[in-house]
């Protein structure tokens, strides 16, 4: 095991080495899985859609790995003292892929009209916005109702993609024929999509950033079987395997190949955090001591080393360490079966069975559930694994029909965007897998999250979020597992592929192939 980890760590080091001047030209072959339902990112924001369409559509900002905003369609921005007015200054020479100019009117249309209707996640953030106006062609002003801490974090391409007003205004968005030939402002243009086979994007010759992009074209290959995806890399058909393309047990083998680099960067914005939902309403999992026992019983280091190739981190609590306002100053749950047994004895647990749903996303998750079952068996918890497919799993969670269930969710850089939703009691409602599915109710936590979202200064927010994290970690509403490390595997001569907090999702703007 130690050798395996060292080699992988060494490969990680190689991939961050410095390199020379970018070269223009060439083609990237990339795996995409599953095939996206659509590339119209204003309508669909699932993983594969973002991965391809993140090169077609853009937003006002990008984010570096520390989640600091960088210019994209906006060249600069000002925030008023009171935190209520955000003014963005736009590039003045940007054209849509059909040649029409991009202006502030497009921003107002996208944010205030189109996405308010189609984008559930953005809609929640836009609740804080009083008005969006365009005083001139290159200026956009967002006025807020009250300060909203994470506001500068929502201008990412998947969260607020810019939609061309001249194509969509006044149309039936979902049935607009233009959805099949997406028009954005990004570095690559949509060229061809042969369903079941591949998607082709070509260089945007009119791109407003001098010299970019470097690549001529990107082919996204649709390959449904994980083993075949590994073979596609081995036989040289594809050059890039984005995170999650192949099963974890294949990662080391592929990473050992010649001219192969691996990086787990490029997920900081999403901060994927895995946990087990614990049903707080009924059964043994309703008892805090049982939930704490689960935390002590699990050997999470083992899961990371054996199932995730040593990538990722053991989760400290509800906030991922790459997300803002994370704190380490919380109760630690090390692997301690004796403590777990003591807690179970104290609560008088008699071996009532608990149903555990693995995440139906492939072999790694199945094995992980088996490892956890074994850990829990060791301290006397009687676990039944319940198998489902994706649709069945969705339904069981949405109807609260489970005791424990694996999941992982994105955090989008800020607790107000991607953490609070899972713990505040106002977010308990059947029919969703992303809200407070565990049914945890705590007035104090509700207040802390509510205050922290609208607090003006970062210090104030940090103080409130630290307190919230400490209380949550003591209560264990869910059993946190790992901050997932998804390895992106690529040929080492593909340079600058992962340069932002969303990695390959907008990576091909800067990428080039060294000759």
């Amino acid at each position: 095991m130690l050798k395996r980890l060292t080699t992988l760590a060494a490969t990680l080091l190689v991939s961050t080495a410095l390199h020379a001047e970018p070269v223009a030209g060439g083609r990237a072959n990339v795996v995409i899985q599953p095939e996206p339902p659509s590339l119209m990112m204003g309508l669909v924001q699932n993983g594969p859609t973002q991965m391809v369409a993140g090169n077609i559509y853009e937003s006002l900002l990008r984010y570096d790995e520390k989640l600091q905003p960088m210019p994209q369609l906006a060249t600069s921005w000002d925030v008023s003292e009171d935190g209520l007015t955000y003014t963005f200054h736009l590039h003045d020479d940007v054209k849509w892929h059909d040649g029409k100019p991009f202006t502030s009117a497009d921003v107002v249309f996208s944010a205030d009209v189109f996405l308010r209707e189609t984008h559930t996640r953005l809609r929640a953030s836009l609740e804080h916005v009083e008005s969006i106006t365009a005083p001139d062609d290159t200026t956009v002003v967002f006025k807020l109702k009250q300060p909203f801490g994470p506001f500068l974090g929502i201008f990412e391409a998947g969260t607020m993609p810019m939609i061309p007003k001249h194509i969509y205004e006044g149309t039936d968005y979902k049935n607009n024929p233009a959805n099949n030939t997406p028009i954005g402002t990004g570095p690559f243009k949509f060229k061809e999509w042969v369903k079941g086979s591949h998607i082709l994007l070509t260089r945007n010759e009119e791109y407003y950033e001098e010299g970019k992009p470097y690549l001529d074209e990107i082919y996204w290959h649709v390959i449904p079987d994980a083993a075949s995806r590994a073979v596609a890399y081995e036989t040289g058909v594809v050059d890039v395997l984005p995170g999650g393309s192949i099963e974890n047990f294949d990662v080391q083998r592929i990473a050992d190949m010649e001219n192969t680099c691996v990086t787990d960067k490029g997920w900081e914005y999403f901060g994927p955090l895995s946990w087990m939902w614990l049903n707080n309403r009924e059964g043994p999992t309703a008892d805090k001591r049982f939930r704490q026992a689960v935390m002590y019983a699990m050997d999470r280091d083992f899961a990371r080393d054996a199932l995730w190739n040593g990538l990722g981190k053991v989760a400290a609590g509800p906030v991922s360490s790459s997300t803002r306002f994370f704190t380490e100053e919380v109760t630690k749950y090390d692997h301690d079966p004796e403590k777990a047994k003591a807690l179970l004895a104290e609560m008088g647990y008699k071996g009532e069975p608990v149903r555990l749903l693995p995440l139906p996303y492939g072999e790694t998750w199945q094995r992980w559930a088996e490892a956890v079952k074994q850990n829990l068996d060791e301290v006397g918890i009687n676990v039944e694994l319940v198998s489902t497919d994706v649709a069945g799993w969705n339904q069981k969670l949405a109807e609260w029909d489970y005791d424990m269930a694996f999941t992982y969710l994105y955090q989008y850089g800020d607790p107000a965007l991607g953490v609070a939703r899972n713990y505040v009691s106002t977010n308990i409602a059947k029919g969703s897998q992303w809200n407070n599915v565990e049914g945890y109710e705590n007035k104090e936590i509700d207040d802390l999250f509510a205050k922290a979202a609208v607090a003006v200064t970062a210090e104030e927010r940090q103080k409130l979020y630290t307190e919230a994290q400490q209380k949550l970690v003591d209560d264990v509403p869910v059993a946190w597992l790992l901050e997932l490390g998804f390895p992106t595997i690529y040929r080492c001569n593909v340079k600058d592929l992962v340069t932002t907090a969303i990695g390959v999702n907008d990576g091909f703007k800067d990428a080039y192939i060294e000759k």
Partner: protein
Amino acid sequence: MLRFILMRLGKAAVILIAIMTLNFFLIHAAPGDPAAVMAGEAGAADAKFIAQLREQFGLDKPLLTQLGIYLKGVLQFDLGFSYRQQMPVAQLILDRLPATLLLTMTAFVISLVLGTFAGVLASARVGKWSDTAISSLALLFYATPLYWAALMAVLVFSVYFNWLPGFGYETVGANHTGLARLLDIGRHLILPATTLGLFFMAVYMRMTRASMLEVSQLDFVKTARAKGLKRSIIQRRHIFRNAMLPVVTLAGLQAGQLVGGAVLTETVFAWPGIGRLMFEALAQRDYNLLLGVFFVSAAMVLLFNLITDILYRFVDPRIRVA
């Protein structure tokens, strides 16, 4: 003959509607629905969003109403709209049909020709080493799980020897045209078609061999021998033709499955066919698409059963009289 065909077609239509109704209820009996799956893929959704989707897809209506709407559409040759792929079902199926037919028909021809040939060969040399070799091979092909054979074929011929492409329909981005493109597709076809054909090849071989041996014991063959006919003529005219009856039945069964595609083969080899379309539709509970694929494959099974019955009448004059 015409009357016979018309009657059978009428029966087939009734059976088809019954099958569709049954499929409809079976699919809806599975837990989960497309709205929840699609919302799940988006990574964020609230009850309002899911309710909107349900309404848009007509999933908020009572089940029987939904069935009525669906069957009415089918009767007007409208297979409905795929929720997830945002395209008419008929178009999705038609788009994938050429790839699937190419794969399954090649596999069909390979298995039928090689299987029958090997069966005849084995029956002519009963008990000899060549018979044992052919029979053992057939047993191996019969017993090997398809996905395993497929992965092994990729490992050996694609990864290790690097002779043949391991997946896809053609070399993406090579932009071949004309003959070069045909050759390219042909190279991509070899591994999936062969692995897909293995099972039926074994079945045809064993069936032909057994049937040939059985027929060769019958009285009219003895008579033919007694008449002093040449061995090759007896083999061809007397035994082979009669031995083909069960093989034709079986070929009809296999042919009926041609359009349904091959889920495993298409998945392992990333072949853009109907089998994969169906599998994805199943995972996403894309009801209309799933029902559409079922409809087309059920119709094909019925059609090929009919063709088999007609073929029977040519192969075996006794059936024509009866």
